[in-house]
């Protein structure tokens, strides 16, 4: 397999709600995710990849933060939809996760939250909060949330923190800006935390339809495509190529394409690895997302099968490679995000150096 490093692709693992519950209950099991060498795991993928909720779940930013502490080499994307959740809260929680996971995280958006309840208002994006009438959930609201979230992640530049004990200025408040976002959502900003060690968390989109792939390609770093044949993957790759020139950040990049391959436990690892290898080899595919379905065995046993058998088989065939790099952006060879807030309104006045002290601090 001398050329496998050239042809092998990124690996991601999609964890559903019951996987999260089992992993959170067993830190040693969670730590075994580190052995997979995956570029990232998605926390709570069943929240955004289908119409119906699973039997049990955890809120993905909570689960990702908790699991990241137990699996210090694993990166997590928290799954969410701007449905019952607001872009400000979402941006804040994922940026907090990214600080606490030392730049090993991100957000994966979908248009709808399959765990959301029914009810007047609650069927509309942010309508369930009872503050505004909300907006129709869907591609437009998701795209707008993706833009607002990425602006918020840049609203407090990390290098504005000077922490100068002589002038007693902690941060250059005048370099922190409002985002003044006016779209489906109205968000003034800035965010309550500075930008993170990897610049910003990775923003991904789980695109269920072809229409979504094009929209996702204009706003996301990475797009996940549900199980598809060669034609579907080719159309998605073409849509991402076409979207590169109309990205809102004007960075001209093509979003990374991850193709989902569903694994049904107990159906044979070799056959699955061959199928995943075929998908990974399709033109335009940057990575495969291994999505274990629930079978009839215990969740713990099925996670064990993925970690101990399925992933090693994919590595052995040269389908995927072990991720390298401290941050998720490094692992995916993604650059820091292009600046989105040039000329934005400063949030605070410039600080003035404080007068000299008449004493030497004693602590």
């Amino acid at each position, binding site marked *: 397999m001398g050329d496998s490093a050239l042809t092998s692709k990124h690996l991601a693992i999609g964890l559903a709600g019951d996987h999260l519950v089992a992993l959170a209950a067993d830190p040693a099991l969670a730590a075994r995710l580190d052995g997979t060498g995956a570029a990232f795991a998605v926390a709570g993928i069943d929240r955004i990849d289908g119409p119906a909720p699973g039997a049990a779940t955890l809120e993905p930013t909570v689960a990702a933060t908790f699991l990241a502490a137990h699996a210090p080499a694993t990166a997590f994307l928290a799954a969410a939809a701007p449905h*019952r959740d607001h872009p400000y809260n979402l941006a804040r929680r994922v940026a907090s996760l990214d600080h*606490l996971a030392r730049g090993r995280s991100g957000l994966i958006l979908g248009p709808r939250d399959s765990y959301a309840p029914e009810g007047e208002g609650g069927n509309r994006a942010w309508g369930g909060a009872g503050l*505004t009438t909300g907006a129709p959930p869907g591609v437009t609201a998701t795209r707008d949330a993706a833009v607002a979230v990425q602006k918020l992640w840049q609203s407090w530049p990390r290098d504005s923190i000077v922490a100068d004990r002589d002038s007693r200025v902690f941060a250059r408040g005048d370099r922190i800006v409002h985002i003044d976002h006016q779209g489906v959502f109205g968000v003034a900003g800035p965010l309550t*935390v500075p930008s993170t060690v990897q610049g910003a968390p990775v923003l991904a989109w789980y695109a269920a339809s072809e229409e979504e792939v094009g929209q996702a390609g204009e706003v996301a770093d990475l797009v996940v495509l549900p199980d598809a044949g060669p034609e579907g993957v080719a159309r998605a790759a073409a849509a991402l190529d076409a979207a590169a020139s109309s990205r809102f950040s004007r960075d001209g990049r093509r979003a990374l394409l991850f193709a989902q391959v569903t694994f049904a436990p107990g159906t044979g690892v070799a056959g699955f690895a061959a199928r995943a290898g075929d998908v990974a080899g399709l033109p335009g595919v940057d990575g495969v997302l291994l999505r274990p379905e629930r079978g009839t065995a215990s969740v713990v046993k099925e996670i064990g099968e993925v970690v101990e058998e399925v992933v090693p088989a994919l590595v052995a065939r040269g389908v995927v490679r072990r991720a390298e790099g401290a941050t998720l952006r490094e692992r995916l060879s993604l650059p820091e995000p292009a600046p989105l807030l040039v000329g934005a309104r400063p949030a605070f006045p410039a600080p003035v150096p404080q007068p000299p002290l008449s004493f030497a601090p004693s602590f």
Partner: protein
Amino acid sequence: MPNPREGKVILGVNVLVLGYLPAAWQSTRLHPHSFIDPGYWNQIGEVAERATLDAVFLADGPALGDPSYDANAGRLEPVVNWSHVAAATERIGLIATASTTLNDPFDLAQRLLSLDHVSGGRAGWNIVTTRDGSAARNFGLPDIPARDDRYDRAAEFVDLILALWESAETGREVHHRGRFFDLDGRLRVPPSRQGHPVLLQAGGSAKGRALAGRRAEGVFAAELTKQGAIEHYREVKRHAIDAGRSPDSVKILPGLLLSLGSTEEEARRRSDELHELGPESYSVQWLSQAIGYDVSRLDLDARFPQDVLDAIIDPAHAGGSIGFRQSIYEQIRATGPTVREYLRQTRYTGSGHGGFVGTPEQLVDHIEDWWRSGAVDGFNLQPDVLVDGLEVIADEVVPLLRKRGLFRHEYTTDTLRGHFQAASA
């Protein structure tokens, strides 16, 4: 002879990120990014757990204040912050503040229950309504709704969250039709070891205290005088009894701002230095915000004008928390200081929350006195600089309390609700 109150003191620490004073970041034990450093947060959790404290507590609002001179303006989202600390600790309670005004109840219910579940039943929710207009503008609103509307919404919001948490245990759907929310569905987050998170309440308005008596298991109060604290303690316990609850089911835990030293003089010097290291205009700005009046327009060497004092306690007047305003008003009325004297005095006696500057031994005397007087069930301690202040609590204050039989020697309960209940005699 002190009266023979049985039971134990409850102790929490309000971490206020790096410590309650804006100059906390200048401690030589911190680095510029401590406030967002996972290692810093692990250390706070571990020292608090070594002290066998009941809980650590994070205040919050979803908007950024000016961090130019104050690192504490930077705030990780509390539920995520504590999810990280939950992985590094086993027993300490983890209380997160979250707004009933700027959240969706379904989303917040699953978030809080998820923290409660992964931490093994150690989560608490401090219920606030948020009064900061800049937070509203992060959620597409021109301003925050009026106070009465916020509390009406909070009451329905809390009831709905409790119903959703119950649905997580029973599997039965919630069908809610209310003035603010309509919802049909259930939570699929597993219940926690303590069932669901402990409810705490922080507001000091009449509606806030009524909500506390009806629903809260803890009140994070603002008290500057013991007499005021005793009256508020009885008021909330009476509300609890009126709601058919045991008075023991709601714990009263005022904040207490701390500067500690091995002598009283050393403690005062530490407090003075930390105040001098902070931005010059900080105390004037703080008081202006708290009372809704531009204090820089007052003659600093004159007493507070009567019309300003009247406005401080008028609930219709714009300004900060009613609970803080009441305690500030009572403090000014007690001694009639000039504005400058008041601002200096607040260094030692607290501003809004009560303050304490002295030795660990004196602090333990203070805690015991208020606890035996029936003014409190415990305190939410707020060290000036957390990184060393918390160590003094663990290594000096807590051992003295233990020696007096007022605090646990080791954890005997696993959950936050269990910790609170174990304090009752």
